[in-house]
């Protein structure tokens, strides 16, 4: 007949369960050291210790959705989420007991385990194992298993089988066998090879020497304790084994998926822990195997690419900032080696990370003469954030991808001038026939800096065919109202592209007029531009300007003449 628990006991147990639920919720919502979490844990500890001291141990039965004490319900909770009974039941726990002398840390460990129970599935762990590893002395739990706690028939059958084996085997030992054995050859006779047992039993002399050979010296004991204390992390041994396996060339039905996933995890953990040695080992091995053709191309990028996320990369770079210079340089070199495999992560970090120093490091890693493959950059060039587009354009410099000019042409119409300026700079690097028409188009941009950059670049890469575009801007009425920098740039390009045909126009610009003199910046820019034309007429004009009454003009003209002479000297030589 089931015992009915006295109401005081039942009520006390109910309070324990309620307190446990609150403590669980507290740890789910707050860090362990948060006052709310601590208070709820303390309440639980008090209720448990008070009960076991006054009323003895607590034995709870765990049902699917409720907890029972002496067959009476003492806890339930709506739904399975946050239901302590369900959490425990799901992981096979069917009973939970608190014994006298239970320590506060044990109770806290229990609640902590419960609060993380839902996370355990992600790592293929379970609540019972977590509790087991905590070594709770005064808290017991029962885990269901067909053989351990149930399945009587199965167990009985298994044990009966063992018994029969034992009885049968021992039956072979009889006085006759013993006598025969002692008489001759019942025990091992000499055999060939290493795998045969030795001749005869071990005599006292041999026993003694064997015992000595296996006696543990103090040095042995110290070595063992050191081995145990230093025993490597599971990850280190695992990483090495994986690296051996990938070189073994064993084909499996599941292919490389499991290996790539596992290796990727190793890389992730190395990065998270700042383990540059581990990461370096992995990289070396991957590079070597791909180089030897023992692993297909793309294997390494699959491993590393999966492992390196923008968040992980950012953390690693932050850690570099705190490490020694040597270590930071080492990490940077490692990242450099991985660069081609982690473009998405690098670019993602550049796009998403707010930390300037992180972005700076990423940019440094990304900049390379050969540029970044366009496939990674085109999506960024469609981003709504101007700086993302700007950075992508910057990084595309040096790329020989034929798609690039197409993208740049589109971006010449980008609403943000900072993007358009970057486009011009990239076009300047591209140069030649691909860039010049686009540069010419940019001369009409509403942003002065864009126009200035474009005309300068056009002066370098354009040809006679682009003179008209420049000339059209120069000859507008509002041209002389532009900034001195823009005036200089335009007139220099005007002179470079137009040559001697521009001398008259430039002369008109710098000379005084009867009615209103042109602004000084324009006059100075015109004089400087004349210095770029390798013609006698231009030199004569400069000579005239050098004798003018305007001191600034004189200086500019003299400088232009001198520069022209030195250019001429260089050309002759």
């Amino acid at each position, binding site marked *: 007949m089931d015992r009915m628990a006295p109401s005081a006991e039942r009520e006390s147990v109910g309070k324990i369960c309620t307190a446990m639920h609150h403590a669980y919720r507290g740890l789910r919502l707050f860090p362990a050291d948060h006052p709310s979490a601590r208070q709820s844990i303390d309440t639980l500890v008090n209720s448990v210790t008070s009960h076991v001291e006054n009323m003895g141990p607590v034995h709870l039965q765990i049902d699917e959705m409720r907890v029972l004490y002496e067959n009476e319900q003492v806890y339930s909770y709506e739904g399975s989420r946050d239901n302590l009974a369900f959490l425990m039941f799901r992981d096979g726990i069917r009973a939970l007991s608190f014994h006298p*002398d239970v320590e506060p840390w044990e109770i806290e460990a229990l609640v902590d385990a419960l609060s993380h129970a839902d996370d355990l599935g992600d790592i293929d762990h379970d609540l019972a194992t977590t509790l087991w590893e905590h070594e709770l002395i005064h808290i017991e739990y029962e885990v269901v298993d067909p*053989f*351990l706690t149930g399945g009587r028939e199965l167990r009985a059958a298994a044990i009966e089988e063992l018994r029969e084996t034992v009885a049968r*085997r021992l039956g072979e030992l009889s006085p006759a*066998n013993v006598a025969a054995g002692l008489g001759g050859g*019942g*025990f091992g006779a000499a055999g060939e090879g290493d795998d045969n047992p030795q001749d005869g039993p071990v005599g006292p002399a041999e026993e003694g020497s064997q015992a000595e050979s296996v006696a543990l010296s103090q040095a042995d004991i110290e070595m*063992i304790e050191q081995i145990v204390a230093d025993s490597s992390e599971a990850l280190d041994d695992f990483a090495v084994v994986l690296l051996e396996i990938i070189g073994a060339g*064993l084909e499996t039905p599941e292919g490389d998926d499991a290996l790539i996933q*596992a290796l990727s995890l190793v890389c992730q953990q190395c990065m998270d822990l700042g383990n540059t040695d581990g990461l370096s080992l992995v990289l070396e091995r991957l590079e070597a195997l791909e180089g030897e053709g023992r692993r297909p191309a793309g294997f390494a990028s699959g491993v590393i690419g999966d492992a390196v996320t923008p968040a992980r990369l950012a953390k690693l770079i932050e850690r570099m900032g705190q490490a020694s210079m040597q270590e930071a340089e080492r990490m940077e070199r490692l990242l450099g080696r991985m660069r081609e495999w982690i473009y998405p992560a690098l670019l993602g970090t550049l796009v998403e990370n707010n930390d300037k120093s992180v972005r700076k490091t990423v940019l440094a890693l990304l900049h390379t003469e050969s540029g970044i493959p366009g496939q990674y950059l085109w999506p960024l060039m469609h981003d709504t954030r101007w700086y993302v587009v700007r950075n992508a354009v910057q990084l595309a410099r040096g790329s020989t991808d034929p798609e690039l000019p197409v993208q740049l042409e589109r971006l010449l119409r980008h609403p943000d001038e900072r993007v358009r300026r970057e486009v011009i700079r990239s076009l300047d690097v591209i140069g030649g026939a691909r860039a010049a028409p686009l540069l010419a188009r940019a001369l009409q941009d509403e942003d002065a800096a864009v126009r200035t950059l474009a005309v300068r670049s056009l002066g370098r890469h354009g040809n006679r065919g682009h003179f008209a575009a420049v000339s059209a801007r120069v000859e507008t009425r509002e041209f002389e109202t532009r900034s001195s920098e823009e005036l200089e740039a335009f007139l220099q390009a005007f002179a470079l592209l137009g040559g001697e045909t521009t001398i008259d126009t430039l002369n008109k610009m710098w000379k005084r007029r009867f009615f209103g003199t042109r602004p000084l910046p324009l006059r100075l820019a015109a004089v400087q531009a004349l210095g770029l034309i390798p013609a006698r007429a231009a030199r004569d004009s400069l000579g005239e300007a050098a004798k003018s009454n305007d001191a600034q003009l004189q200086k500019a003209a003299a400088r232009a003449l001198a520069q022209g002479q030195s250019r001429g000297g260089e050309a002759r030589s």
Partner: protein
Amino acid sequence: MTDKAEAAAIARRGQQLTLALASAIRTGAYYDEGNTVMRQAVSSLARVLAEASAENGAVSVGIRSHCVFVDKVRVPTSVSTYERFTFLVQLFDVWSITEMTFNAGLSDSELMSALLLVSREQPVQGGPGLSTLLTTKGVEYIVVEEIVQAEDEAESVGPGPLEVSAIVAYSAAMQLGGELGKVAGSIEPGMVRRVRHVTQAVVDEIIRDPASVLSLTTIKDYDKYLVLHSTNVAVLSTVLGQRLGLSKARLGELCLAGFLHDAGKLGVDPDILQKPTELDDREWEQMRRHPLLAAYALLGKQRLTASNMRAVVVAFEHHLNHDLSGYPATEIKKSVSLFGSIVSIADVFDALTTARVYRDINFTPADAMVEVIKRSGTGFDPVLVKLFAQVMGLYPPGTVVVLTGGEAGVVCRPPAVGLPLDRPKVRIVVGEEPGVVRDLYERNGSGFVRDILAVLNPSNQGQMPAVDPEVLRLLN
């Protein structure tokens, strides 16, 4: 929770006290009160106790779940302390006590009386408990907490819960090994979780009484070799790991890794696995793949927890020798991991002690131990070999021996910790008292009552079961 440094200091003090207590009690077994050695042991212990009890006026040494606690703080064990810790655990068990509390003010003379009492006297069933005995000796400053035994427990005969639990855990592991053997390809996550629970139960039993579980590994059945082998390797590895002082969590990982070490054999042709004769070159080539296959099988669908990682490592390494010869061939490995080294010893030992039809002479456990010792340094880590020999003795469980006096039996327990390695316990099979257990350490004046005369290999089966079949019958 105390911080790390404080915790380490507490652990050190606890260890110091435990060792001093164990040493003093053992000294009391050999030396009288007036002896200098005994007096020094007592005063040394008294100093440690005085220091430990200074803050709270008392210090307690307790045993819970075969672990030592000082003032309710667990004292970690290691290979150097294992012997004395085990001694203390067994002593508490003998006296049915869970805790001894030493109060400030305890005199050397009281302490001496108490030590001599526990070391020299034996509890009498139905007689006064230790608490009463101490009082009669005038010991007031030491308080013991005794286990209160229920009436039905006191009267029960037959196997205690200890032996039942070991058998249940072992048979569960055995059944699981059988299920694992039927699985083709990679191991399902749910299966690994079950293996974990069962191996945890095995670890719990090994912590309680390693010898009980060890004896079960001697029940060899040729037909069931593959099923039993994984369980036996798990047990042997864990017993060795326990002696190393590995934590419970690490023992759980080791047991799991040992259990799954041959998972790769799932991918090998069963005809090759079960071939009764020696393998040819082509067949050996297939067999040599199984460590790699095991690693793949364990990688396949498992989350990469620390325990799963170690299982993969062990599966890969268990046929690698200490000098990195063996298989599979390695290119970058510099050493075999600790777990791999442990499991390889266990694997070879269990394989050697399993009778094979194709062997002219099968190994007795004593032969197998010799073989393991022979391979020390090349095949196996030399220090681990020594420790393995300490655990198993020179005549491991399952060795059939003839004793002086004409009796013959099976070694059922290795020598107790700290005793000579050639002095195990033997269950008599042939003699006047079949079933009785002889302790070969039993002394007769200056010598021993019995010696081993010879090792037998009846029917060329090598190893005999070390378990009393009557225990298994009573369970049913």
